[in-house]
């Protein structure tokens, strides 16, 4: 489909310094292909460290520069706590499920 359709990325397991580079590569590839509307579904992500957060932040910044954004969905209460601690709940749009995140893109003319 077009670059307007949000792309869903679904990282699984622990997003620590060992695993964050793979997520970074995947997000960079999507952005390089013009997909600047990204949804990261964290339903299968059990943990995220500062390295993982850094990757999400960098991708969000690039997406925004290209007129898109990176939205998040399906965070466990524990992950949400980490996001809130770092103030990341203020810079990311966080949705309960994929549908809500997709609808949010649709509303802004996606």
């Amino acid at each position: 489909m077009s670059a307007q359709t949000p792309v869903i990325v679904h990282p699984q397991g622990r997003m620590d310094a060992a695993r964050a580079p793979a997520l970074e590569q995947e997000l960079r590839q999507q952005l390089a292909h013009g997909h600047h509307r990204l949804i990261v579904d964290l339903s299968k992500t059990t943990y995220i460290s500062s390295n993982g957060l850094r990757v999400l932040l960098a991708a969000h910044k690039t997406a925004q520069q290209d007129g898109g954004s990176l939205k998040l969905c399906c965070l466990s209460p524990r992950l949400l706590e980490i996001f809130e601690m770092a103030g990341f709940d203020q810079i990311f749009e966080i949705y309960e499920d994929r549908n809500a995140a997709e609808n949010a893109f649709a509303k802004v003319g996606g």
Partner: protein
Amino acid sequence: MGKAQHFQLTILSDFSNLGAVADFITHAAGESGLDESASYNAQMAVDEAVTNVIEHAYHGRQDGQIFISCESDDDEFIIVIQDYGKPFDFNKVPKPRVKGPLARRSIGGLGVFFMKKLMDKVEFSSSADRGNRVRMVKRIR
């Protein structure tokens, strides 16, 4: 209850060992009576600390040794992380900007920020001949 416990793990400074470190801390914390939330917080603080050691003390070298020990009594769960890499002054790590718009966020120092937030006490010491030592305490209950 009332029994002092001691756990030890030695790893090489390779990010691929972070999963084993998390399992080790979760096990030690559980055995020491920390609840699930406190245990999760302790494993995150240690994950951030060990990541810092690999990045800043060993500069990504994968053959440096990292010694992790946990001790507990009725009141406290104490974790000590020791390395013999380049001396690193944790106290000089800048504080991250965790408020404000995206463009003004600085992300450096987020690991140390989490360690301090997640644990009740965090102490750093460092010297050329004794390496770096991080001591963190989580109160039990």
